């Protein structure tokens, strides 16, 4: 994985840049000591590290604007950072970049239950948005698995999803308005507490633009009344094909579960050792959860169980109470942690049409054999968002490269069957060089033109998303003080 060489001009100007930034920020908000900038050398994709030139931690939108004005004038690239939980390297710095961390901006600004909206500063964590409203019976729906730590700013940058988006959608479906600072320091407000923003759907394109269009400092989010209840069932099958057919039949039957999660044998075994959730001995395990009134739950689970039985499950277990529900979810929720305890792993994120599940799972098994690296599968089956976990040994020379090659082949497979490279983690640097598998040059040109409008000098998070050779000519202006 290649990153652009740092600009010697910028590195030479570090004292001046740091001094200018310190001039517009409170004491302690500029981190330039080399030992301390290491805290920002990577995000959740820990295989790649590079300390930034410096990091800044503004507390207001106006401070963000002042920082960006200076960086714009100095021609310094800026890497926005939420909580640094990106799995795609979205917040990976270069040595000549300023990390703009939003963590100090985490206030709730406004709650309107009548409009069902909340306005927050975007450094606020995903879970604490719900935390601010749950006592009144409301919640914020997108629930990425990092929700305890991840910031709304990062959720917007990556258009984060979660386990429950089959019913509630992803971030873009729950974002009503933003206050954003553009690279030249301009502060812009888009949308608000009303349901549809006017004009072009800027919100739609800002969401998921991986911090390349602006720094979102405030967000108005749609909140929802908590459902009366939820109940999962656990269904074990002898094969991936049967589980895939069951998922398809559930969806066709007119039931819309909030979540359909899938785990294969590899993951089930590790999770059992780790969390002792009491999962059955089987090749494929589904957790299907429905929500609503008790009658609604009974009706939906009745249909689901009927379909599940038609496919002859190894086990079919319905949660009788909250404890049993928690046990059903326990293994799934600890899957990533459990896998991490036994091995290094790389977590992929391709999405496929649900109907291709059996074929893709079989093909992943074949690729796993060819490359000699084990792959565990745990993912959101309802929406086809796969999370193959490739196990490798980071200390074994060449293993990371083999793992990346296998990962690339799996993602190409996802695109071949009509899917995409990333369903919720983002492109970042991780999938950047595979973009031309999914997009023709004209498709990428259409995307890059949008960045040209927001950030003509290509200073915001510049070396991400688009293959370097494709964005090269646009990034030439970097490094030169205006």
């Amino acid at each position, binding site marked *: 994985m290649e990153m652009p060489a740092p600009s010697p001009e910028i590195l030479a100007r570090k004292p001046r840049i740091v001094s200018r930034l310190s001039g517009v920020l409170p004491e302690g908000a500029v981190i330039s000591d080399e030992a301390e900038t290491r805290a920002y050398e990577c995000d959740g994709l820990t295989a790649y590290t590079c300390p930034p030139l410096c990091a800044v931690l503004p507390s207001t939108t106006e401070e963000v604007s002042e920082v960006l004005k200076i960086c714009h004038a100095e021609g310094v690239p800026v890497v926005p950072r939420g909580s640094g939980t990106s799995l795609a390297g979205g917040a990976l710095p270069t040595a000549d970049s300023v990390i703009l961390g939003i963590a100090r901006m985490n206030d709730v600004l406004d709650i309107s239950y009548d409009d069902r909206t909340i306005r927050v500063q975007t450094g606020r964590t995903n879970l604490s948005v719900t935390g601010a409203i749950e006592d009144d019976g409301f919640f914020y729906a997108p629930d990425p698995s990092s929700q305890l730590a991840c910031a709304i700013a990062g959720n917007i940058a990556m258009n984060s999803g979660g386990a429950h*988006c089959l019913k509630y959608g992803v971030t873009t479906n729950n974002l009503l308005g933003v206050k954003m600072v553009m690279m030249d320091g301009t502060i812009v407000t888009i949308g608000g507490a*009303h349901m549809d923003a*006017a004009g*072009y*759907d800027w919100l739609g394109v800002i969401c998921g633009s991986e911090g390349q269009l602006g720094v979102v400092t405030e967000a108005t989010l749609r909140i929802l009344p908590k459902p009366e209840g939820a109940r999962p069932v656990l269904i074990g099958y002898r094969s991936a094909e049967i589980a895939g057919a069951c998922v398809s039949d559930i969806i066709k039957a007119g039931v819309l579960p909030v979540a359909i999660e899938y785990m294969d044998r590899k993951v089930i075994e590790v999770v059992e050792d780790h969390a002792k959730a009491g999962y059955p001995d089987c090749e494929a395990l589904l957790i299907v959860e429905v929500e609503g009134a008790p009658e*609604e739950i009974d009706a939906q689970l009745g249909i689901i169980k009927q379909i599940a039985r038609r496919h002859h499950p190894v086990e079919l277990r319905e949660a009788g109470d909250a404890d049993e529900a928690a046990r059903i979810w326990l293994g799934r929720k600890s899957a990533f942690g459990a896998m991490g305890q036994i091995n290094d792993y790389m977590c992929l994120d391709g999405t496929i049409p*649900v109907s291709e599940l059996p074929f893709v799972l079989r093909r992943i098994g074949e690729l796993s054999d060819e490359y000699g690296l084990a792959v565990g599968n745990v993912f959101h089956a309802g929406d086809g968002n796969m999370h193959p976990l490739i196990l490798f040994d980071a200390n074994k020379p060449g293993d990371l490269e083999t793992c990346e090659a296998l990962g690339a082949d799996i993602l190409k497979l996802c695109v071949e069957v009509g899917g995409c490279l990333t369903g919720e983690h983002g492109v970042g640097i991780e999938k950047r060089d595979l973009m031309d598998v999914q997009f023709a040059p004209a498709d990428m040109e259409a995307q890059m033109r*949008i960045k*040209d409008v927001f950030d003509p000098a290509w200073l915001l998070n510049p070396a991400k998303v688009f293959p370097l050779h494709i964005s090269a000519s646009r990034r030439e202006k970097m490094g030169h003080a205006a």
Partner: protein
Amino acid sequence: MLAPDTEELLAEAIASAETPLSICGGTTQGISTDGNPLSTANLSGIVLYDPGALTLIAKAGTPVAEIEEALAAEKQLLAFEPMDYRTLLGTEGTPTIGGVVASNSSGSRRVQAGACRDYLLGVRFVDGEGSIIKNGGRVMKNVTGYDVARLMCGAYGTLGVLTEVGFKVLPASETTSTLVYHDLDWSETAAAFAAAMSSPFEVSGAARLPTGAFETQHACVLIRLSGFTDSVAYRCRKLSDLLETVVGRPPEQILSGPEVNDGLWKKVRDVEAFAGMDADIWHISMRLTELSKLKPLGKLDDFVFDWAGGRVWAKVAPGTDVRALLAPFEGHATLVKGGTNLPRFHPETEVLAKMAGALRSKYDPKGILNPRLMG
């Protein structure tokens, strides 16, 4: 009139055009711009329908009715319930799915399920230079690259001409019931909407029709519930109890079953109440908590509320500047019918207008796609 029957021919037509083109879907929305008409009518047909994956892809000129029929056969639907403008505007023609996307047209269920743009999975389009561009695809979760598809939704053809659109579809409801409340005043209406939408009972529509639109003698606040039969019955009871604490009485009627509800909610969706009126019709997007700002515009019966007050259709005397009377408010107002010197779309802030102009000049450097339509 240009009406190419392949995407390639459409691209050639745009590449070779030197003068403005007026992009047409079904021409039912009463929007026309100066220029040579370019129709997508001959780009028609469902390309892929995978009910088990809740996915449908169709060419832009496909009639909405054809798509709805195909979905109904599998007991599925477009959850955002696209509006049919012919009723309100008295237009003719056949609504196309491309026109629905280009205008981000959504109906009553938008309040629960989201707008057209929320169900859009991907598009193919031709930009102003004749390049064929694809974005998104056929899967529900996709964050690969920028979401250009959503940007095309609601852009009214000014950034490119849609040739193909893909949607997430949803299962149709087994049954529907509507609670009907007569003659609630401003504050009762707002309180009923807020209470219903803040309840866990999954309201799939919340509207108010003026006197005479549904009941001859009464204005009606309508709260809709959809889903499985037992569940709808249960939620009807619970919601009726809840709203009794707000409006002080049970609903005057509960309408059950698809027949009566389909017709009723089509009236709401298509704003039948204001069809054929000699008045200007405005569409206002606003927050429920600012509903009282509408009072200078007219009496309660001069409005149709949908989306629990988030969408307001206003009937005003010809020439009324609704934006001026509402200001300041959080939202925007679109002149849908009538008016003379007022712009159709809500004027944007200086920054956003500049960005829109910059984007247009990149997607349509010749300035030929529906020029002057959006700002």
